[in-house]
């Protein structure tokens, strides 16, 4: 089975620009999550989709971040306009149920650098 795929793997953009990260979950996984790790800090929750609906977006830092999940398949996370503090590694994960039994399957992440 193919894993969770994220791209790009790396992105370097200037402050004020827009960046869109994409995540393709494992086929059939209704639950999709975005997490972020800022340098030196722990991995932190951003939001959770069940199919195409946002179940919990309590971790989204501000309205410069917009997540969508088209038709309950792939998801995008757009940052507009990007700020220096948005730099970090953005992870996507998916699961069949709520993740309680088997945790999540994570992608390899997108390393975002805002200069």
């Amino acid at each position, binding site marked *: 089975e193919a894993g969770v795929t994220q791209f790009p793997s790396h992105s370097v953009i200037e402050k004020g620009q827009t960046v869109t990260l994409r995540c393709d979950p494992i086929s059939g996984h209704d639950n999709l999550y975005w997490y972020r790790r800022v340098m030196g*800090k*722990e*991995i932190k929750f951003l939001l959770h989709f069940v199919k195409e609906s946002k179940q919990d977006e309590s*971790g989204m830092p501000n309205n410069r971040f917009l997540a969508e999940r088209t038709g309950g398949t792939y998801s995008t996370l757009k940052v507009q306009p990007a700020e220096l503090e948005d730099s970090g590694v953005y992870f996507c994960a998916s699961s069949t149920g709520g*993740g309680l*039994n088997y945790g999540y399957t994570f992608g*390899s992440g997108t390393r975002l650098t805002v200069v």
Partner: protein
Amino acid sequence: EDQVTQSPEALRLQEGESSSLNCSYTVSGLRGLFWYRQDPGKGPEFLFTLYSAGEEKEKERLKATLTKKESFLHITAPKPEDSATYLCAATRAGNQFYFGTGTSLTVIP
């Protein structure tokens, strides 16, 4: 405040030298405590889930245990290929995980 704290931050072991990693948590209504392994440039890879105090899980040279306040990941006779960052995460309902900052383990041949 929900929080997960891991120690030590980094650990260097000789091959075959057993040790333990600690994960203390303050998450009300804990439903699951997870251990993940993360290699450089990769996402976290699931290792174990523990659900209740007293529970233990084993996989090869790794054994995870859980009490009401902390979890331990015991590594017995580690090999160089066990070198990685080990992450602990706690959840109330499985839909949002609280991660620790991880322990970076290096096993020297």
